[in-house]
């Protein structure tokens, strides 16, 4: 507790030279208040420690159960009813294809929408509606997006069920608000002087935005995009709605083939009765967490490397 980092917070009440502070009653009171102070601080530290202990327990149990199952066969195989043969490559490829569709749709759409709202939008009732709906979409439960995907993409437009195409579309709708919000913050952070300078030497508004503001805001936008994509990668509920729980023995060949995704594979295996699947589930969780850790690490790296403090 008494390390250097915490010393500034340790300042309790010191008894002063004044005689009134020296009475036993005053001393008791001060001691009581100092004890309350220490207790409060300890509770705060305890709250963090408890949360982190839960995290550690989760990770340790997954590692203990799953590390033995991580070998080349597991990483290169596809789903099977036999836990010894089953692997994650089929599901990982499905995740990859789904993420590709999501990225190709949500990134351009999100960035363009962010540019419009931040740089060009007039202050009108319409624009206010767009902003309100973006903020709300970012907080709508993911399962609702799954219902939308089922009703619109599959039942109305007749797209193939269980395919990375529909999964990617659904997740793109979910990810786009995240990208728009982070994109707007990144664009807002570019100082007005950059815009004024470009406009002053005769650039048009459009040239100013695309030649100067956007490149400067891009690291921030990319960070937000990666975080949004990481969230989409771990998402299961909306994909459950559009039927991406197919038992897929061969990896999907294209974005219209039935496929599964990594989190869905975890969910399907967790339901299996054979005891070998406990190891498989935990191993798949390790694979998924490594992917997520890599993506978040990349986002933090990008932020630290390219972030400009104006």
């Amino acid at each position, binding site marked *: 507790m008494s390390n250097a980092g915490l010393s500034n917070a340790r300042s309790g009440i010191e008894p002063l030279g004044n005689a009134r502070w020296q009475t036993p009653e005053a001393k008791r009171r001060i001691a009581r208040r100092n004890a309350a102070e220490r207790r409060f601080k300890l509770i705060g530290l305890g709250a963090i420690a408890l949360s982190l202990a839960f995290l550690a327990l989760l990770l340790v149990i997954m590692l203990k159960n799953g590390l033995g199952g991580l070998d080349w066969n597991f990483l290169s195989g596809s789903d099977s009813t036999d836990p010894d043969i089953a692997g994650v490559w089929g599901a990982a490829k499905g995740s990859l294809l789904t993420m590709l569709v999501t990225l190709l749709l949500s990134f351009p759409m999100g960035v363009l929408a962010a540019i419009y709202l931040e740089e060009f939008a007039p202050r009108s009732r319409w624009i206010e509606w767009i902003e309100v709906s973006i903020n709300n*979409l970012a907080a709508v439960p993911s399962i609702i997006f799954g219902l939308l995907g089922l009703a619109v993409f599959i039942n109305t437009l007749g797209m193939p069920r269980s395919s990375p195409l529909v999964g990617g579309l659904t997740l793109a709708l979910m990810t786009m608000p995240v990208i728009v919000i982070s994109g707007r913050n990144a664009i807002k952070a570019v100082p007005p002087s950059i815009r004024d300078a470009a406009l002053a030497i005769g650039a048009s508004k459009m040239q100013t935005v695309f030649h100067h503001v956007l490149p400067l805001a891009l690291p921030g936008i990319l960070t937000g995009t990666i975080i949004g994509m990481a969230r989409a990668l771990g998402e299961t509920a909306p994909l459950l709605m559009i039927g991406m729980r197919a038992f897929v023995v061969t990896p999907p060949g294209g974005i219209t083939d039935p496929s599964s995704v990594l989190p869905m594979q975890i969910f399907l295996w967790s339901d299996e009765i054979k005891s070998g699947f406990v190891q498989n589930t935990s191993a798949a969780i390790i694979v998924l967490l490594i992917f997520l850790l890599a993506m978040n690490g990349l986002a933090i790296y990008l932020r630290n490397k390219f972030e400009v403090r104006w």
Partner: protein
Amino acid sequence: MILTGVLLAVLGLGLVGWFAARGRARLLHTGRGTMHSMPGYHAWHVALWIVVPALIAWGAWQAIMPGLVDGAVMADPAAAQLPADPMSRAAILAEAKAIADNPDTVAFNPLSNAMSVPVRDAHSRFGLIGALLVAIVALAGGGWAFTRIRANFPARTQVERGILALLLIASLMAILTTFGIVGSLLFEAGLFFRDVSPIDFLTGIHWSPGNARSDNLADSFGAVPLFWGTIYIGAIIAMIVAIPLGLMSAVYLTQYASSTVRKWLKPMLEILAGIPTVVYGYFAALTVAPIFRDFAGSLGMANPSTESALAAGVVMGVMIIPFVSSMADDALAAVPRAMSDGSLAMGATRSETIKKVLLPAALPGIVAGVMLAVSRAIGETMIVVMAAGAAARLSLNPFDSMTTVTYQIVQMLTGDQEFNSPKTLSAFALGLVLFIVTLILNIIALRVVKRFREAYE
């Protein structure tokens, strides 16, 4: 097939137009000296005039072609043999289309083979007409734009106007998505409410879609037990875990921890928010639930179930901790420093300042954060699917298995029943309720946060 080729051809034509226009504009540039727009803008102007009208024509043709093909097939003599019954007729036509696309398909009905010939003919005929139409539109647009390449032509303004339209369309996607959600939920829920009255649905206390028959529909779809389970798990148990832990971590991180400690602890806490919910669900089912079951057993409960509201709620609460913590963090940071400085200067200890000054001042922000956390918890799916159970019951016992709105949505839609049964449609009605409740929570919370920030600015 042919139309995909057309799409590529249009893009190729656009590329050709781009280079041709740039070349011509450059010639003008060297000849005249001053121009309104750079050659590149002329190039984009022409390319856009080739691609955009052609794509619109392509999309329009894609939309009307199936109707034209059907009309042509019905006019064919072979169609006279089709049965009058619309169901089997549609089935044969669908099969004929599959054969026309891929000749190796094995037909279930021999008539389909005969029908596939006119289908294929009509396909190629209308495909060709469509391709011609698209080509004409592309060439006409490109040609018209090409004649406008002049030194004083404002190509840049035109292109920028086009880009602005694109930006506007991108931002309208958000509104379109919202309309899509509201529209599809209302439509499907409307179908459900034709069979079951909304009053029975919202106030009934028996949820048993499994044995719903047409004569007891009103009795089988009472959603109150689901609402109770959702509130009990998401808004009560999860919050009992998340609010104290999240709030105290925020207090510690903002008020006591040095900046180095904060720099390390905060990202570690955020990892909790980054773990996929399916992992939490598995952890809840594998580790947490058995612990609570054994605990319930040791309390003397008979046959404690593995799936319990407590396990799902506690794990969900842990998942929400970083969210509550960062919302409380923001709320505490918004309180002006002068307020806590004033309290400290009067001789209050830090904890007294926090309890008596900071927390009351930050309360609106914290309450809004808790509301957002609740809206997130009641929409959470995987943890309850894996750990909470399927039994719809009104119970106060946290060790009982309980079900939630999200669990039942998953349950209703992952079976194999036909899409229009009341059972399937009930999922959309539940989704509608969930959407409305989370929407109200979010709107109120965002408004409170906004007003709270303004109050201290």
